[in-house]
């Protein structure tokens, strides 16, 4: 075997020394907590989970406040959370001395209800300059049940989405009241008095059963079709083609 050149031997010793020191440190000296990414991720997730909460969430208010959430849930503001207007309230739950804000000024409601062309059509908007100038909104509207001054004339005013869907479906000719009964009270307090909904298979069967006398509607055998399911579990009545 040929002898390795002196210079190479020296270099190899240095390189081997350096490499072993580096590898030693990396794999023997350093604790696993420094090198294990799974541990790091876990601790990051834990730190994330420990972060303080500011907004208490929608469910907890009614544990003490009974009336307002109930009114709210029955009215046009039913999609709002208490904290949408009252602000973050976890501090109030931790310490009742802290009172969440209760905005009463006239400039608060226009944040949502001032006319803005970019807002979706049909969303209630006012011109704050022309609309009862200087009067605080709460003089006329209860923010927990903001009844509009006039009752809506048709279902479409509120249920535009359903109306649009129905308009292109095979049920286009059916008026809402064929399937739903809505009282006048529902138009004033939409959540307090809900419209009826069909309750059983026989209701759809009145048009779609084999023995019904409607023309040009699909007929099925109620006994064999769909087993124990209710019709609208597979057919969305406002758009019955979709199943």
């Amino acid at each position: 075997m040929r002898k390795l050149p002196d210079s190479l031997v020296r270099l190899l010793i240095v390189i081997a020394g350096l490499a072993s020191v580096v590898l030693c440190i990396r794999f023997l000296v350093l604790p696993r907590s420094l090198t294990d990414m799974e541990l790091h991720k876990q601790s990051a997730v834990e730190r994330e989970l420990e972060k303080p909460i500011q907004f208490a969430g929608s469910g907890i208010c009614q544990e003490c406040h009974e009336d307002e959430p109930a009114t709210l849930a029955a009215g046009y503001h039913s999609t709002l959370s208490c904290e949408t207007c009252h602000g973050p309230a976890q501090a109030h739950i931790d310490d009742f001395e802290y009172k969440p804000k209760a905005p009463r000024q006239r400039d608060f409601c226009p944040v949502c209800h001032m006319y803005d062309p970019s807002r979706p059509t049909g969303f209630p908007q006012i011109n704050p300059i022309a609309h009862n100038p200087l009067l605080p909104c709460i003089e006329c509207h209860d923010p927990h049940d903001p009844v509009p001054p006039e009752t809506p004339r048709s279902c479409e005013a509120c249920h535009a989405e359903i109306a649009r869907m129905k308009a292109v479906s095979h049920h286009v000719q059916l008026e809402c009241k064929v399937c739903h009964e809505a009282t006048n009270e529902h138009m004033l307090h939409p959540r307090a008095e809900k419209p009826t909904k069909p309750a059983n298979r026989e209701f759809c069967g009145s048009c779609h059963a084999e023995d019904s006398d409607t023309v040009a509607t699909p007929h099925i055998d109620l006994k064999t079709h769909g087993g124990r399911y209710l019709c609208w579990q597979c057919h969305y009545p406002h758009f019955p083609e979709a199943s």
Partner: protein
Amino acid sequence: MLRRKLLKMLTGALPGLTILTDPFARLLAQDEETAAQELPLYGMGIQVDRCIGCGNCMEACKAENNVPPEPTHMRTWVERYVIDSNNEVHVSLLNSRNRTSSQIDEQRNVLRTFFVPKLCNQCENPPCVQVCPVEATFKTEDGVVLVDNERCMGCGYCIQACPYGARYLHPETKTADKCTFCYHRISQGLLPACVNVCPTQARVFGNLKSPASPLTRLRRLKKINVLKPSLNTAPKVLYTDLDGEVR
């Protein structure tokens, strides 16, 4: 899976062993099933047609997540689109409450106009996670992309790699920061702060895997789009009624 294969191999070789291994095999199978059932996959739906541009979400996010007050640091924000009759697109940032309509030019002949909320898309293939040199940003098993701010060295590569501008360098911690879907809230069953305060349910939060989640209902009833689909990031923020001009 590997363990089960191993067990199978063992039992295949020695049929007598089945008696011994069967209970273990059943246990392992149970483990896998329950694990798959329990882990949610979080996502958010944005119903563009419902956004009224009130800015509640932006404000709530800043309050909940200790986001710096400057408008150059946002975990979520709302954009106003105005498309005029020349088909020119004018976009502006909804910069704070009570100032929403100041920017719209009354003289402009508006063809259509709307608001679009934006936030981290919690991509299934997140480019930010791909480029992070030290694995400081990662995807949790329930699909949320988080930043480990004790690991992040603040190089900013993830910020450059995000196609949606959803990340920023936090001026105090000097680390990358972004929307976490309010991870500390959702893991307790609460809604993200922005969803909690949204007055019109323009934001819908839920578990993409669960058949009972409002998000699943949304996906069934609406046409869904995501932002920049051509980049193959597979966002889990799903938009309905999204205009083609939105990028």
